């Protein structure tokens, strides 16, 4: 029996985001669906409601907004689902001045 490929890449681990940020590009054209999980290890300031944006790229270097967003909440983990994204994915955004978060960003991919 062939089962569908499924892979979780931890694209950021224990990384502090402040101001403008983007996760490292992840090449995953083999997958047809993805979930970004953002686990907040540490929060400084009020970040609830901050909007992160899923971004796609045709070459891994030039990016555009895919349209899916991930709104940070007071929960430990937030997520965003995305499909039909081509070959590269990342998560970008901007945190309010004076705030920061320490995060683990996991990208769960499925064929």
């Amino acid at each position, binding site marked *: 029996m062939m089962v569908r*490929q499924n*892979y979780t*890449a*931890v*694209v950021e*681990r*224990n*990384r502090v985001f402040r101001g403008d940020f983007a996760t*490292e*590009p*992840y*090449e*995953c*054209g*083999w997958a047809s669906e993805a979930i970004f999980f953002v686990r907040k*290890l540490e929060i400084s300031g009020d970040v609830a409601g901050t909007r992160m944006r899923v971004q796609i790229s*045709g*070459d*891994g*270097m*030039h990016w555009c907004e895919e349209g899916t967003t991930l709104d940070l909440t007071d929960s430990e983990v937030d997520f965003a689902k995305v499909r039909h994204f081509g*070959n590269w994915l990342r998560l970008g955004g901007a945190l309010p001045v004076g705030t920061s978060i320490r995060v683990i960003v996991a990208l769960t991919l499925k064929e």
Partner: protein
Amino acid sequence: MEDLRRALLRAHAGLSKFDPLSRIIFYDDFDRGLQGWSELIGNYEDSLDSMLPGYEDLRPPMLSNGTMWDTGSAGSMEGNYALKIATRPRAGHIAADVKRVTWRRRGPIRLEAYFTFKPEPAELRLSETDVRAVGVLFDIQDEGNRWMPHLRYLNSLNGEHLARWQFKRRSEALVPVGVTGKTRSHFHLASTNWENLPDGQQTLCYNEIATKYNWHYLRVDLNLASRAISRLQCNDRVHDLADVEPMIMPPMPNLWCMLNVVLWVETDVHKRAFLYLDSVILSGEW
């Protein structure tokens, strides 16, 4: 029997490009997925902050079909997908991924792979010195020792094209991690203490611009009984291993029969460096 075995290997489109020993321990063709390769990470206790800095961010592997901004998808050597290991765009950053197994007899083992490396094609320039190094290491433990053969192809350093194979036998300091006294760590991939192989110069096929890549053959033989690196071959060159030794250290408490393979890439500039593997095979005499 040996003739039959050889004929069967030659008849297999994937295996025919390798010369494995009698038992295939793993054969990873990345058209079938990531095949058990994952990010290397350092030891920690209680907090990720307790990890040695060199281990904090060694990056997860990807499956790549070699898509370039100017020519589209190149695919891999056989099929569509290759394992891709990518650094951050920060000079000196290392990305390293691992496959972890164990051994069952102290005899010869052989790692073979088809690989290539390139910088991210972010500039319309030759960029042939942007990738600092690519390498392979093994992390092995038997009853007497933990030993770690380290080999790297030093492509460039601070912009100077060096194109030579190196090894590392001197261990880095083993330091305690956390407070229980049970966990220790050493960043053996540090840039210190690399030594040149005798006559280890080798020019590879960079091929003119950053979006063209050519696959290279790599073979590393080890002898688990004598704790020796017995062969390094890259394409047509079999390198002289006289005086080439692995790191050797006392055994550690919970690593019995460990056999880890690590592949890595290091960037020389503030630009991502990519190591691609079409396929990897580890074989042994057991």
